[in-house]
């Protein structure tokens, strides 16, 4: 790590501490881990480092300007089972960090979109996607966006205590007047934004296959240079929405809940996703 980067990281941490009232001690390490995980050759390393450093500085300056409402306290985070950098359960924290690192390592491009789906409904994919998004947001140079893809049984809005009447993804897809910026909400977690599903629509599949949906995804990806959209989708075996959303994503994480699904169901889900997009499985409560 260069002196410049260290100094910058230190200044950024101090700033964030002042703003959020907490210190992200692991942000620099996360950043380093993310940077180290990239497969870079020795010859091009200096040139890439310079270019990367420019991007990081640019991203951090943009992210720094992100507005933040009142942040959630540690107690509130714990009550929502959300992970946070200073949590006592370091094991779980490290599990999510490793998960994030593996995802970054397996993806060639930044700002990739990740779909989190479960083999069966009730598999815990919402909490996994929320915590994964929170893990991405640990890094001050990155921002994550959690998109509620479960239109019929949304649960993330409740997690972030968002009013159900607030317009969301379906409203945006339906309305010409609503823009992406109008449906992005603060979550109380630094650098983590949330896009609710909005009003429940019976023909949600039609909206997901629309061109506007593609432009919405593109827009949220491009909004910030280091943004990682994470879509919480319903069960891949049980919902057509999940299969459509699969096409819009770069990587897919399959959540396998303990004692709720059979091997045949897992095999079917893995076959639907395909080896190309399947980043791997997350075992929930094994």
């Amino acid at each position, binding site marked *: 790590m260069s002196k410049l980067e260290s100094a910058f990281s230190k200044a950024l941490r101090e700033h964030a501490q002042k703003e959020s009232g907490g210190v992200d001690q692991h942000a620099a390490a996360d950043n380093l881990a993310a940077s180290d995980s990239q497969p870079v050759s020795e010859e091009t390393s200096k040139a890439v480092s310079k270019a990367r450093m420019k991007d990081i500085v640019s991203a951090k300056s943009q992210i720094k300007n992100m507005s933040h409402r009142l942040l959630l306290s540690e*107690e509130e985070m*714990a*009550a*929502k*089972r959300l992970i946070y950098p200073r949590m006592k*359960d370091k094991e*779980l924290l490290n*599990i*999510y960090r*490793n*998960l994030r690192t*593996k*995802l970054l390592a397996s993806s060639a491009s930044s700002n990739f979109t990740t779909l989190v789906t479960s083999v069966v409904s009730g598999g*815990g994919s919402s909490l*996994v996607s929320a*915590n994964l998004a929170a893990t991405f947001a640990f890094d001050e140079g990155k921002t994550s966006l959690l998109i509620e893809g479960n239109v019929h049984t949304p649960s993330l809005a409740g997690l972030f205590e968002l009013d159900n009447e607030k317009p969301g993804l379906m409203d945006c897809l339906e309305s010409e007047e609503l823009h992406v910026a109008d449906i992005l909400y603060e979550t109380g977690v630094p650098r983590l934004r949330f896009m609710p599903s909005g009003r429940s629509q019976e023909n949600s599949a039609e909206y997901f296959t629309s061109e506007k949906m593609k432009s919405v995804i593109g827009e949220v990806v491009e909004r910030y240079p280091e943004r990682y959209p994470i879509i919480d989708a319903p069960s891949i075996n049980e919902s057509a929405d999940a299969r459509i959303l699969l096409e819009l994503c770069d990587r897919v*994480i*399959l959540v*396998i809940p*303990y*004692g*709720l*699904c*059979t*091997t045949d169901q*897992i*095999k079917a889900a*893995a076959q639907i996703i395909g080896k190309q997009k*399947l*980043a*791997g*499985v*997350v*075992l*929930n*409560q*094994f």
Partner: protein
Amino acid sequence: MNAEISEILSLLRREIWDKRRVFAALYLITSLAFLGVGWFWPKSYTSSSAILVDQFNILRPLMEGTAVTTDVVDRARIARQIISSRGAMEEALVTSGWVTENSTELEKEKAIVAVGKMVEVRNAGRNLLSIAVKNADPEVAYKTASAITDVFIEHSISAKQKESQDAYDFINGQVEEYQEKLQVAEQALKDFHTANVDARPGSQDEVNGRIMELRRRMEATQLEVRELKIRKETLQKQLSGEAAITENLTREGQYRERLAALEEQLSTLRLSYLDTYPDIVRIKTQIATIETALLKEQESNAGLSVADKERGISQAATTSLLYQELRSQASAAETQLASLTARLEETKQLLAVEEERIIRINDVEAKLAQLTRDYQVNQELYQSLLRQRENARISMNIDKENQGMTFKVQEHAALPLTPEGIRFAHFLAAGAILSFMLPLCLIYGVTLIDQKVRSEKLITEGMGLPVLASVYHVNTPTEYTLNTFKKSIILFVILLSWALYGYAAWLRIAG
């Protein structure tokens, strides 16, 4: 610890917690069920007596081969039959107070059926019978067992005596029957002997010998006859060619010559036969005739003159000596032939008589053999039955004196103090263990049956999927408190069931 066992234990812990409501409910239901069943499970007291069946008393070796002491192989079966007999059972029920003499038949019948179900008779050992009575009331069990034991012994002894008496009576009847048969056979044999005097041992051989002798004699006589006939024919041929007169002999001389020849012949015959033999008798008669003629000739010669004598001599001299000799031999041969022919006829008659006799003797002997056989068979059976009757008499006397198979109460029925079979404590122990094990096994069985994935190894090794992370459930502070409360409830349920068990046990002990 084995990794597999550790995995199973971990799985069970997890599944029990996930299905804690089911587990707690099953635990409570099972433990209460055991408690309830144990509480209401009827107590069963057993009073039993042991009866020694002594077959080998002092009399046994002494009477070996003579008397038969009653042997019983399946004593338990016979004992059951004796006990379940109406007479014995009624007696036992009256003694033990189940019924009275004045009870109705219906009451008696019901009591017999009820007690019959309580009684168990079995072979406790080679010579040991066990009579056990089960009842909820220990005193009733004791009284009934005592009464049934006494009645059994009493009835067994009387049954044995009756059996011996019946055996003796039967054999005695057989003896009398065979005695009559023997008498009939004896009489038949006696009558037969009277009717057939010839029928005596060896008579057949004697007659056969005689027949053979007669046949031999007949053959010899026939041979002699043939010889004489040839001789006679030869002599007659010689006589026909000989000069009639070659020499003169006096008549007196001729008589003398003839007499001498006959006497010689007589003396020869006497060597072989008695004087009564026909040839001897005949020759004697001829000798007497010739002697008479000779005397007459001598008397006549005495009155004649010398001239007359000479004339006589000259007359005799006209006959040839050789001719005379031949005539004499021919005459003798003729006489002998007639004698032999007569003898042959006589022998033939005797042979016919003997042959007829031998046929008769064969028939008689066959009949005699049959009668003798009947008699011997009857005699043997009769003697055998006589011996058996004496044995049966001794056996009967042994049983009368109670010296045969004896029954002794080895162990008297006692008042049972502790109930038998499954007791309340067993139910409590089983309840304490099984109320844990049953839900545990059910939950584990469900995990085996439902085919749901509960093992990381199955995903990584079985399906080859890359595992990015394995996250676990983190309790929120509220959940933590709630879980503590839930654990407390489960603990409370377990302690409650134990407390109930303890209270029930205390109630039982306190009576």
